[in-house]
């Protein structure tokens, strides 16, 4: 253990992805990270490996291969069936110290955000959380800056290591983008926000070619200080606007047929894994409960996606939702103020537009 020297970058090779499973099921972030890791591995000319911990999870390997993994290290043990910080950290640090990857990526799920910092501290290396862009080539990084920032890229001094990982992440609630490098220690670790990286197409040939490498687990009782008593799956029936990633909100524009309007909103919300909100006018009319009201006198929400159906967009409503990352508005009145804050606007009758949107969403 004490022989692990992490200050010699030349001793580290390969891009690794932590492949999270829950109840024997792989997470979508695994495939996103493998797709992204594939590009990094190709740019570096190295192998892309997955690391899979669990109990009887070997069978999942081809799936991981199909998204780009050349090899998957599998660590199996009944103690690894459910995630615990202690057991996973111990097993991962053992294999990292042994195999020495140069880059180690973890999905920024609840589990990943818990695991990443713990491993980084134990390995004494740098970790960047919640990354939205990862690049190794300095040339590619410059291209990325030119297309996403106002920086004078060509006029800047560049003395960063080529092939070192440039990890870009939003800071201060997304008001600042920071690119962070980890030049002196290895592995370079980052957690990556789910949904940010594009998933590649599943490739059967690669799935067949993926190597499985069983790695022995060494855990003793003193390593395990946490015990999972029970895993509970919460039924998601209660509407909670706060913290919802997607909100489909209805306004007085559904008055032509409130029930149909609400059903449409619910269908759209279901298709996007979101919840239904409302403007005060819709709440006052008695169509929706008061706990679903968005606005100055309702809830202030900041979802990734806010869809406003038949909402005129009075300032009292806008105050509760204008910080949403993306706003889509459907309104039959082209001069409705909601269009001033919408990223995408559709001027039309929501009773015609929304069913078509739902069609597209459910048959994608």
């Amino acid at each position: 253990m004490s022989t692990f020297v992490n200050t010699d970058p030349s001793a580290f090779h390969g891009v690794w992805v932590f492949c999270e499973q829950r109840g024997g099921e792989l997470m979508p972030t695994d495939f996103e990270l493998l797709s992204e890791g594939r590009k990094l591995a190709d740019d570096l000319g190295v192998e892309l490996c997955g690391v899979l911990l669990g109990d009887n999870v070997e069978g999942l390997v081809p799936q991981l291969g199909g998204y780009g993994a050349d090899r998957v290290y599998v660590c199996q043990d009944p103690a690894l069936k459910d995630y615990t910080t202690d057991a996973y950290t111990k097993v991962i640090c053992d294999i990292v110290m042994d195999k020495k990857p140069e880059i180690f990526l973890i999905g920024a799920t609840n589990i990943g955000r818990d695991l990443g910092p713990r491993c980084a501290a134990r390995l004494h290396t740098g970790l960047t959380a919640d990354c939205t862009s990862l690049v190794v080539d300095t040339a590619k990084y410059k291209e990325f800056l030119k297309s996403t920032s106002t920086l004078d890229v060509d006029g800047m001094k560049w003395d960063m290591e080529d092939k070192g990982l440039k990890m870009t992440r939003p800071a201060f609630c997304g008001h600042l983008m920071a690119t962070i490098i980890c030049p002196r220690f290895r592995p370079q670790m980052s957690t990556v926000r789910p949904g940010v990286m594009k998933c590649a197409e599943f490739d059967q040939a690669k799935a067949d070619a993926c190597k499985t490498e069983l790695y022995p687990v060494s855990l003793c009782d003193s390593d395990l200080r946490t015990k999972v008593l029970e895993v509970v799956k919460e039924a998601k029936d209660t509407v909670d606007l706060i913290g919802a990633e997607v909100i489909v909100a209805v306004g007085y524009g559904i008055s032509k047929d409130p029930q149909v309007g609400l059903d449409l909103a619910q269908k759209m919300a279901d298709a996007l894994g979101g919840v239904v909100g409302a403007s005060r006018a819709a709440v006052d009319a008695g169509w929706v409960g008061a706990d679903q009201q968005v606005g100055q006198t309702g809830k202030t929400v900041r979802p990734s996606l806010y869809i406003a159906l038949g909402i005129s967009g009075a300032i009292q409503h806008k105050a509760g939702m204008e910080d949403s990352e993306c706003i889509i508005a459907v309104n039959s009145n082209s001069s409705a103020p909601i269009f001033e804050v919408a990223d995408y606007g559709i001027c039309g009758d929501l009773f015609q537009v929304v069913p078509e949107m739902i069609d597209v969403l459910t048959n994608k």
Partner: protein
Amino acid sequence: MILSEKHQMMRKLYRQFAQTEFTDELLDRLEETGEFDWDIHKLMAKYGFMGVKIPVEYGGQGGDSLAYALMIEEFARVSPVLSIYANTSNSLGAGPLLFCGTEEQKRKYVEPVAKGEKILVFALTEPGAGTDAGGTLTTAVADGDYFVLNGRKTFISGAPMADYAVVYAKTDPTQRGSRGISMFIVDMKLPGVSCGKPEAKMGIKGYPTSDLILENVRVHKSDLLGPLHKGFATAMKTLDGGRLGMAAQAVGIAQGCLDEAIKYAKERKQFGKPIASFQGISFMIADMATEIEAARQLVYSTAVRKDAGDPEASKLCAMSKLFAGEMCNRVAYKAVQIHGGYGYIKEYKVERFYRDARITTIYEGTSQVQQMVISGNLLK
């Protein structure tokens, strides 16, 4: 200002009416339910209060602005919310109609309103257009013999019980700001007209205020009020009268507060004597009375000058509302202070006055709007 015998008689009538008819039981009911009281409305109509300022040929009493101000003041002295019952028809309701309505429109709408048979309200404010009425988004599009109205009005006093509303809508979208706006008389029973939930307000409870929603409402062109595209400029000329009424209301509320403060200061004993005998309290009362009297004289003289066609009337009406509204809040604050802890309890009248007073610097043009009008007049 010395009131004529006629005006003195009127003041006596208004005062007696308020003192006998605005019972504590009625006021408590208004406060608790927030609902409009039709009985007192009918009684006011029977006495002709709904049409005090409306000419006799249109069913009113033909009184002048001073009579109207006296009525609002005396009513507000007992019940600020009931003063609004008699105010709307005399000011913003019938005002625009009398100012620029056709003979036919006056006959059709003003008469029943003056007699208290119908309720007519004023619908200008929108969620995004308060002080800046130029931000009006409600639209009216000509379609044959009709205009099709779409939009949402907010904080419309009396909307839930109204029979008609004077609605402002953009008829010429090419013109910016307050230009290109027209006035319409909208029958509240027309298809497509609905009201929002009555707002829960801090004060003046008992005169429901709600949104007014217009969805493809077809209004006949005979209900276009005044010139097309020039409704707003016309409306501004009628607002003076309403402002004067609100200034009178503020004077009334302040007088009611002073009445209560004096009564309490004489009764309440601390350190072995009535608190009125302490200079701190007695000076407060002196200041309150002085401010009220200054505001009252400003309101009365403005009413007379307005009726006499004084070119300064617009500025004076704004001054009256600005000074009386702010004064009324200072007085209400002191009245509660004089009552001490008891002034914070709903059983004591000043608590309600204090809440009612707050709106007087806000509606019918905030104090800041009045300052804009006054300074605009002075800095031409």
